[in-house]
């Protein structure tokens, strides 16, 4: 099939970017979206132009590198997948596809479609862990039984891949779903309860410092999350935060 592409090009963080039009032919329906971009890049290189820079690594939907806004939706029109798992059979001959980077003040563009998501790392650094040293003599793994439903719920929250689609989809560029997923995972496990108060306060403080917007409960993040992380995590984080704050 033949496609028209409108792609954001920006040389570096300091320069001004713009949308550039490309056309591409010979796209096959069983190509992945990124393979379609590979084909385009190959033709650009052969013409002596710089290829389009985009983040990608595992190409199987788990590393969270993909950060493409495709036709106005993070990771494109399909649900519960990342852009690398999106296949061209979702498009048809003659379509125009608009490709932009995930946009947020806290995610500045580095080049073309590549953005800086270290804000997520800093939120995580503020408390997204349980403070245990490596010793080899912690208690036996089966010493504390954990309710299967709680463990499963914690696992569902923990599947976040940190791609930033939640921020990209949110009209306010809020990072609440990302932050809450980590807070909720640990809030649900007995091991994580010990530091629950400090964790939620520190992570929320860092999240606010990074310049993300505020949550207005539109639910866009949940719909666009490639791992289907639930809004319930945000409610849980709000609850944890209020409890932590009332404790002082």
């Amino acid at each position: 099939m033949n496609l028209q592409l409108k792609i954001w090009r920006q040389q570096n963080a300091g320069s001004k970017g713009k949308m550039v039009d490309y056309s591409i032919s010979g796209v096959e329906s069983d190509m992945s979206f990124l393979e379609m971009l590979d084909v385009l890049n190959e033709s650009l290189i052969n013409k002596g132009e710089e290829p389009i820079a985009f983040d990608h690594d595992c190409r199987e939907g788990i590393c969270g590198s993909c950060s493409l806004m495709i036709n106005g939706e993070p990771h494109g029109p399909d649900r519960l997948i990342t852009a690398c798992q999106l296949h061209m059979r979702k498009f048809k001959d003659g379509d125009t596809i608009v490709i932009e980077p995930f946009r947020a003040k806290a995610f500045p563009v580095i080049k073309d479609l590549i953005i800086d998501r270290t804000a997520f790392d800093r939120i995580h650094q503020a408390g997204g862990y349980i403070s245990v040293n490596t010793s080899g003599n912690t208690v036996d793994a089966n010493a504390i039984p954990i309710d299967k439903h709680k463990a499963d719920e914690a696992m569902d929250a923990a599947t976040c891949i940190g791609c930033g689609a939640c921020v990209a989809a949110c009209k306010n560029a809020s990072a609440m779903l990302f932050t809450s997923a980590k807070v909720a995972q640990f809030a649900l496990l007995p091991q994580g309860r010990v530091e629950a108060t400090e964790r939620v306060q520190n992570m929320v403080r860092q999240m606010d410092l990074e310049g993300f917007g505020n949550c207005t409960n539109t639910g866009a993040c949940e719909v666009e999350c490639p791992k289907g992380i639930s809004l319930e995590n945000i409610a849980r984080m709000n609850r944890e935060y209020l409890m932590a704050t009332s404790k002082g």
Partner: protein
Amino acid sequence: MSALIKSSIARKVVMALSGLFLVLFLLLHLSINLSSVISPETFNQWSHFMGYNPLVQYLMQPILIAGVVVHFVMGIVLELQNNRARAVKYAQFKGSANASWVSRNMIITGLVVLAFLGLHFYDFWIHEMAYKYVEVNPQDPTRYYAETVEKFEPIWRTVIYVVSFALLSMHLWHGFASSFQSMGLNNKYTPNIKKFTKIYALIVPLGFVFIALYHHLNPLTH
């Protein structure tokens, strides 16, 4: 405390609590107004009570005004912050793919309702304040019904009324249930809260619209 109010979550809770307070007030307001359709006497009695009871006037009225002010000031502050959080906008953003129009446009519905409140204050509250405290007129427990019905005589005001309440309905449609999520309540009751929200968001504004239309269609006979 200042740290608390600076956090995004605390601000959301303030929005939720003030919003829920206004939701409750709306119900009270509607019940009093409905009495104007059923019995002008009851309406006058209620209105007079609300206008002259010291508890209502000096405690509840300031709280209500504070609630409105907090809700809209905070709403605007948050909106400005949210705008700043995405400095460069998307060339294409398909918000409708993942969220409802009402949830994405609370600022529009909210500002329209706010503008309406301006008119409403001008029509009733400023008039009352002038009547009672500036002109220092004597108490007249029978004047309210006629004053109210008179307001709905011009078609433009009735239309503004109807449109504003349609937008209020949209505002409630998202805001009511959303406030529970903001306060951390998302559990097995959530589907019911959402259902109740929809009923409330339809019935209450419809009630106000009905009253406005009723009085417009049944003007006072001079």
